[in-house]
């Protein structure tokens, strides 16, 4: 305490000399800035892995974690719901613009799109990645983005087409016509297909060359470009990299040869989200999501899919059939199921339908018979075009049941939705085939309009 003044002088000197420097801070220990993300392939790979983690770590049924299956399943004639909550709005085809499940679908889709866009920009702007690495990552990011837009536009119709991370521009985007969205999807997939090498070290958990091609085939089919759809599906089928699993119970296994692109488990304890939400551990429990009589009764009794992909729970004398493509409610010691995004059976059905529309009856029947054969059904032959098209739609209903909204999307694109749903949904209106744009989204973007029928 010799010179008490030193107590005061030291801090003053400290401040005057260091003010400017003092307010500079480091980033949090667990964060890095964009520059460091795309400086090498390991970090860029992590950014892409981040999209997958985000897409599949949901806490509930989400956009890419079973939500599309469940909610379009309720809206169409596949599923009903035994818990009385907001999700009943989907079953009642009376979704309010304020429905938060619907908002979650929208919000998460655009969050993933942002992540894909951030990757695309980061990769393109990187000066340190090699050309090969750039192509590899860019192709994967484009495929993911195309996949997200495909589902978005099928749920909502015209949606804002966000292709950058620039929020100043994006916040005021209006809706882009469905055809333009498809053009973008096709363009992205074409570039992805050319950027992605046919052979990569990835297993089927990442979107590779053939995932881009398979999705492209689907996009061509949905846009009625049957020649291209046929060619693209053939390209995947003929690659010989994938094969139809002979056992129906092997289709959704981790080592399934049929899966072109699938998601690996992310959240602990969850093998697949659909298994977790659809399959009660007890066979006597009342499940939350139940297969409708319409779907169950549409199956031929000899159809192995009815027995292998549907399980019946019985409670108090009442039967509750449930989707049983994924059989595991919780994570096993080692991962044994794979959440399929794209699989070969669909490619056969795409090609069959394309053939049929091109009036190439016999090749179409051949493709359908591959699917029917695996299901234990007799082959078909000698069809005429309209009947064949109907038959292929029926086959799609069974093969792709409760899988990524295929039923709902097929009913819409074939125009069969009104005649199919009017008899079974008292509230049915033709405008219900599009989900409402979430109200808060419209509230925060003056250029956004609502779908018809939702005020």
């Amino acid at each position, binding site marked *: 305490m010799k010179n008490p*003044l030193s*107590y*005061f002088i030291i*801090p*003053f000197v400290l*401040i005057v000399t260091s003010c400017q420097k*003092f*307010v*500079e801070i480091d*980033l*949090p220990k*667990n964060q*890095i*800035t*964009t520059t460091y*993300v795309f400086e090498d392939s390991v970090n860029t790979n*992590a*950014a892409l*892995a*981040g*999209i*997958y*983690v*985000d897409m599949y*770590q949901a806490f509930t049924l989400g956009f890419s974690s079973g939500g599309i299956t469940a909610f379009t399943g309720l809206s169409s004639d596949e599923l009903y719901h*035994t818990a*009385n909550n907001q999700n009943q709005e989907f079953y009642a085809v*009376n979704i*309010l613009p304020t429905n938060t499940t619907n908002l979650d679908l*929208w919000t998460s889709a*655009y969050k993933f*799109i*942002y*992540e894909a866009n951030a990757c695309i920009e980061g990769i393109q702007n990187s000066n340190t990645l090699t050309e090969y690495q750039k192509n590899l990552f860019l192709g994967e990011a484009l495929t993911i983005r195309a996949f997200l837009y495909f589902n978005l536009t099928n749920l909502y119709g015209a*949606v804002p087409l966000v292709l950058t991370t620039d*929020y100043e521009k*994006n*916040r005021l*985007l209006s809706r882009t016509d469905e055809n333009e969205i498809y053009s973008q999807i096709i363009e992205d997939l074409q570039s992805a297909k050319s950027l992605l090498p046919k052979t990569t070290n990835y*297993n089927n958990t990442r979107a590779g060359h053939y995932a881009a091609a398979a999705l492209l085939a689907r996009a061509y089919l949905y846009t009625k470009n049957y020649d291209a759809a046929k060619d693209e599906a053939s390209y995947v089928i003929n690659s010989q990299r994938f094969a139809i699993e002979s056992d129906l119970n092997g289709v959704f296994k981790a080592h399934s040869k049929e899966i072109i692109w699938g998601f690996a488990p992310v959240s*602990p*304890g969850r093998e697949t989200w659909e298994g977790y939400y659809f399959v*009660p551990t*007890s066979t006597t*429990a*009342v499940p939350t999501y*139940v297969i409708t009589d319409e779907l169950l009764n549409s199956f031929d009794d000899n159809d192995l899919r009815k027995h292998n992909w549907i399980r019946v729970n019985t409670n*108090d004398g*009442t039967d509750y059939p449930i989707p049983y493509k994924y059989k595991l*409610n919780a994570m096993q010691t080692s991962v044994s199921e794979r959440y399929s995004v794209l699989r070969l059976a669909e490619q056969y059905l795409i090609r069959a339908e394309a053939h049929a529309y091109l009036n190439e009856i016999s090749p179409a029947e051949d493709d359908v018979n591959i699917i029917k054969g695996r299901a234990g059904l007799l082959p078909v032959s000698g069809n005429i075009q309209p009947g064949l098209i109907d038959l292929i739609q029926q086959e799609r209903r069974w093969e792709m049941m409760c899988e990524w909204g295929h039923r709902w999307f097929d009913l819409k694109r074939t125009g069969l939705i009104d005649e199919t749903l009017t008899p079974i949904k008292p509230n049915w209106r033709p405008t219900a085939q599009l989900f409402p744009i979430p109200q808060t989204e*419209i*509230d*925060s*973007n*003056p*250029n*956004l*309009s*609502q779908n018809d029928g939702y*005020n």
Partner: protein
Amino acid sequence: MYIKFTLSPYGWTRALMRWILRKETLMRVHTTFALVLFFIMQVGATSLAQPYITLKKENIKLREVFEEIKRQTDLTVFYSAKRVDDTRILNTSFQHADVKDVLAECLKGQPLTFEIKEKTIVIRHTPELGNNAAPKKGNKVLVSVYVEVRGRVVDSLGNPLVGASVRVLNAEGKRTTLQTTTDRDGYFLLRNVPEDAILEITFMGYKPIKRATNDDIGTIVLSASNSGLDEVMVIGYGTTTQRYNVGSVTTVKAEDIEKQPATNPLAALQGRVPGLTVTSTSGLPGSNYNLQIRGQNTLNSTLASVVPIDNPLFIIDGVPFSPQNRNVNQLMSIQSPGNSIISNNPYGGFSPFNSINPSDIESIEVLRDADATAIYGSRGGNGVILITTKKGKTGKADFQMDLSQGMSAVGKTMRMMNTQEYLMMRKEAITNGGLEPNLEQDSEGYAPDILLFDPNKETDWKEIFLGNNAQNTIANLSLSGGTANTQFRIGAGFNRNTYIYPGDLGDHRTSFLLNLNHVSNDKRFTIQFSSNYSYYKNNSSGNRNLLEAFKLDPNYPDLLDDNGNLVWTYEGIPLGRGGTLANPLSYLKNKYHVQNNNLTSNLQFIYEIISGLKARASFGYNTLYTDEYSGTPRAAINPILNTQASANFGTNNFNTWIIEPQIEYQKRVSKHFFHFLVGSTLQRDLNDRTLITGTGYVNDNLIESISAATTRNASDAFNEYRYAAIFSRLNYRFDNKYLVSLNARRDGSSRFGPGRRFGNFGSVGLGWLFTEENLLKNKIQFVSYGKLRGSYGVTGNDATSDYQYLSRWQTTLYTYDGTLGYIPQNLFNPSLSWASTKKLEVALELGFLKDRILLNAAYYKNRSGDQLVSYNLPKMTGFFNVAANWEATVQNSGIEVSLQSTNLQKGGFTWSSSFNLSIPKNKLLSFPGIESSSYLTRYVVGQSLNTVLGFKYAGVSEETGVFRFYDAEGNVTDSPRRPSSGRLNDYQNLGNLDPKFFGGFLNSFSYRNFQLDIFLEFRKQMGVNYMQQVYSGFPGSQMNLPAVLLDRWQSPGDQATHQKYSTQYNDVYNAASNFTKSDGAYSDASYIRFKTISLSYAFHSELLQRIKVNNLSVFCNAQNLFTKTNYLGNDPETQSIYGVPTLKTVVLGLQLNL
């Protein structure tokens, strides 16, 4: 009793030890306190040793003792030979004994006293004291020592009080003949004062004060008696008084805080301060409070119509409170139910202020205008709240203990339907849809409650889940005191509250506070230290559905079976399928707990370089460490869901340190008074959080351990904030009439990018005490005080998240196929910078009838431009918002009036009142480009930020029985159009949620030993009523409803308040959804609340003297006892039927001072 300290440190330590030993039968805690005190005082002791002598002799005369002292020491002894009894023979046996003790022993029993003054001992003859004092103390020896007492008497601003009278009271508190008055500089000197005497200092217009005798009693500050005008008021980096302050500051004092049985200091501010709204988020213990000073300054990032943000800056003893008013919890619980319309409580959570014991608080100052807040620069834009803890005072050691015990209960809530009404409602709802009740789970007619459950069973679930009484226990102990050099206060507090829910839910807090102040002998060097530690723990439920448990069907089956196990099925039917909750008792097994450890420390060195020039360095540290757990054991899981047992563990650690060196110069030159302050601030805030989730527990007993989980996932987060500034303030006063106050500050904040970090802020304040003008002085008798003041200035706002100017990626929680991912964290904005608020205030302060009535009226107008907001974005941008400076101007203006008066003062009866009223007005002044912004459907230029846009409600259709609305053209419609494509369509302005006016009214009555305080809080406002929440649900489905819903449409022609019941997702459902967005869901939520009623009785001092107690009082305090409101719902403050309303609390207690 008192402990008295003599001159010698050895003397007083001995006296202290004597005291300790004498009171050994007292509680141990006394001893502990005393020992702590002993060590503290030892540290502070200065060396002023007395000489020692050794004297072992038998048959010695007193005169010889004096000679021996002279011989052995260098002291001289003056005595009157006449008065000293020379015949008296003593036997002495002193070995190296203190002269003082020797004299005391030798003079024992004689009418003699001695005084040691420097090198001289004076022996005096004192017949009256000598005869009176000794016998009174019984067999105990009283040492009478005479001292000379010097001191100075000043007012709270340090101005000398000339002619104040200083009287000497004897040890029994009786006046003696000794007295004097202060000289023209305020000094006084009293000779021959018995050492154990007490000084009483009185001065006209000031509160009398009593002090223990001391040779240099130092400066005694008298505070004005009639009014608070001259009481010390804490402001930023200093103190002032209301008389000479030009800023807008309101003080809430300890006495007002203590009367409220609240465990959160923020609760004690409700209604007390003009311009400050304090809103409780829930009645559950530990819940947070929303605070806002003078309205909302910034645009809101959320679109939900909820109470706004913009918290003031909180500073405790000079240290910014690290968590500020943020929730400390990360996990969900019934306190933090999340942001849904059902819970209507987006800001709910645990208040960090649970860690502060209100009884440790000396005062809370609320700073509002530019003059008061500009010194806080970029942080003061939303106002500042200063919390000052209690300090020790020179003089007697005061041991205080207060204990209270009480109960809380939920007040009046809406009656729910009974079984008969409920079943009728359910049948009607199903029949309305053309259905029959059935047991098919996919059917909208699914009704186990009608078909299966016992129709004669009736359970009042509200009584079970909300009807319990919560227990409150408060215990506080403190010891304070000190010498002229060192003052201390040690406090300890304990607090415990239980829940209104069944089960062992509850919270408790243990806190310790130490304050020390030491001044060197030459009075130039001062050290102040304060340290406050507290431990807080809350146990509750981690499942927010518990809040809605009382909605169970009244005929719902028993929740427990005969063995006490949870019931999940009933007659083969799984429970909880139709929209109702399966088994709410399971939520009590979803245990949640949060623990906070809080430490706030402040160390200040003050050195007076030359007279008036002081250097000061302040070092502060605050940490709040939060530890959370929330678990879902297997026992709480509905077997039907078959989910795994899981547990979450979170830590949330807030840290702040601050260094503030300052130089202060104060000078008075004739009529000019200057006070100049320059200082700087370095502040660093750190916040780090971890969250670990464990799943797959196989044994419920191990669930509170992370190592027992089969799968573990961890995440963490870090935030750093740094802040540096230089500030200065000049106060100038001329002739105590004209006041000038200038503030300037340059600030740097780490929240902004390079080149945008620094900002300048400042203010000008002027005041005119016009009653001091000769023209007016003494001319208008009844106006005793009058001041006109005004201020204008710029304060800032850097209240945004950290790192928003950088584009950041963070690692993912989980891996994807073995690869850890990165996820983008934010939309970044490199051009982010300060927001600034321009504040203007004009005020008139008047005192009437010798300041018995004080009126303070202020008008303010604040404009916040270049808004720093979390700009709301459509989700298609990938994020919800982006930190941005937005070119919108928000204006908050208003009038604040406060009135204090002593209404009656007669014959031991006093009635005084204080009243405050605020009339705020919030307005979005301009918003360029609002048409192309995401706020189009949220804000209207020219209207309040809390404007509600929605449908105009047109009542229930007599024909169809569903809600109808007016469209924009005024026609009634069933399907109003929501906003779309930038058009509001049928949305209209429904008014705003701002309080129209609010305030408080306190009446204090005291009669003899009784004191009664009645404090009313009132607020006029519009709010969300119960219907918004009821219709966000599905009235008609399997859950109970408030009985008021019986007034519903049944058949064509009915005029009803409520639309028909339904279980279907059809037009009735859609109308309900539209209704929640209409003005039907909003109504008057004004209230007048008996916030505090406090009655206390202090026992008579004569009685207390006999039991050696200084003060003993018993009290009964009640909080929220009555509420007068027309609100449609449970509680107009929390505005939620599924939240817990503000509780009523009554406590009984006693306060004891030794």
